[in-house]
């Protein structure tokens, strides 16, 4: 009798290759989401104005904020959807077990988050090129990759971290929903309670506010993502394949 011995690493790697290939469609949906975000960003995300000597002086900031909000929603959906029954069953049509399935899902989410973060960052340059075509206004020379590589990388990293954290949240949420449907309402409960209760506010404050630098904030994002992933793995360890 010949038994092939696949190590966990091998199986995870094969699953990752398979999943990235199989989930390419989600990246196309990401592009759609980004383009939608870009279109809505054309008028600027925030502006300030003042009146000086009878002249209205206005600066309109065109940032990646709208795009990142859209992409975050996409990330939540992505993390959630790969835990659903259909996706889970297709994974188990090939060699895998609970751990390798989780690990490969996590790696796929990381890969997709990096892709989403970097493209979100770069997509902003489309705005920089397109917006001047439609508006006859002044432009401020803006920090670009060559001018300010460090801050560009930091902000790219922040986008990746944020998207990863949200997709991890979606993944945990989806895993819990798979275990019991009642968890469906968890997200809604969280959305209501986090900003309204004292502890919720404290948690939010701890993560998002009072950070010395963007780097610290990003580290916090990644830590939260890791916590979400670990929780998802622990809670799904004894999960059966329901097909």
């Amino acid at each position, binding site marked *: 009798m010949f038994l092939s011995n696949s190590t966990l690493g091998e199986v995870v790697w094969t699953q990752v290759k398979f999943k990235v290939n199989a989930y*390419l469609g989600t990246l196309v949906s990401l592009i759609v989401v980004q383009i939608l975000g870009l279109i809505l960003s054309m008028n600027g995300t925030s502006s300030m104005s003042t009146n000086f*000597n009878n002249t209205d002086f206005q600066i309109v900031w065109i*940032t990646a904020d709208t795009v990142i909000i859209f992409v975050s929603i996409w990330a939540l959906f992505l993390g959630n959807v790969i835990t659903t029954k259909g996706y889970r069953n297709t994974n188990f049509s090939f060699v895998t077990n609970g751990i390798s399935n989780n690990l490969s899902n996590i790696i796929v989410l990381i890969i997709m988050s990096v892709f989403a973060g970097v493209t979100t960052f770069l997509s902003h340059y489309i705005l920089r090129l397109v917006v001047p075509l439609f508006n006859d206004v002044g432009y401020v020379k803006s920090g670009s990759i060559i001018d*300010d590589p460090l801050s560009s990388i930091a902000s790219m990293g922040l986008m990746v971290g944020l998207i990863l954290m949200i997709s991890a949240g979606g993944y945990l949420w989806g895993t819990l929903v798979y275990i019991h449907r009642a968890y469906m309402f968890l997200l809604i409960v969280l959305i209501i309670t986090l900003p309204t209760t004292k502890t919720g506010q404290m948690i939010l404050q701890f993560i998002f506010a009072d950070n010395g*630098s963007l780097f610290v904030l990003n580290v916090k994002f990644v830590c939260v993502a890791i916590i979400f992933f670990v929780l998802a793995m622990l809670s799904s360890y004894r999960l059966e394949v329901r097909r």
Partner: protein
Amino acid sequence: MSNFGILSILPILGILFIIWRLLRLAKSTSNRINWAQRSNKWILCIYIVVLLLAVVVYEATQTNGEEALTSKEYTTFINKNNVFQQAFENNEESKLDSKFLIEEWTQELEGDSLEVILNGSDVLMNIEWTDSKEQLVEAKMYRTYSYMGGINMGKEIPLPTLEVKDNQIILTAIPQKERTYYRFTNELTFFSTVNNLDAREQRRVIGHTYIYLKVPKHINVIDKDGLQFY
């Protein structure tokens, strides 16, 4: 002329060449890949190429546009403005930085009163009372560093026109349309405003137009618009 033409075509040719190479690469990789995925892969490849091109093109063409202040410059400007304002409020004419000086003039008054009229302009005024018995009024107009969101407003916003008539000083703002600047940033504002003090500082409006008058004590200054500090 012909030299210039060739030079301007070269970068375009270069970009076309890069696109062609990238498309070739994308095609050869996607040939090894199945049909259903091929359209997805094409879309992704094209999107990435477009993004990279956007960056390259932006970096190459970004020549016009206002320089924005760095936060370091901002801080020094704010400090200089503050020093000026301090000196202005304290009637220390000698300390007023002459590089802010825009215009100065003197005027022989006919009567005993001087009226300062503001026609929509936006200035701060201070008066230094002199012991002179003459009718002569000295006036200086200053503008400190005027920035908003890192943009030099001083350059764009015209100074009020100044009209000196008998015993009147009329400052009329030139009603300029409006001035809008677009500013792009890589940063996520909803994080940077919370976390980045520099960014908050950069959004402040700084700068003013000042009028400094030296007026003999016996002259009555009529200041209907309440420009004066005290």
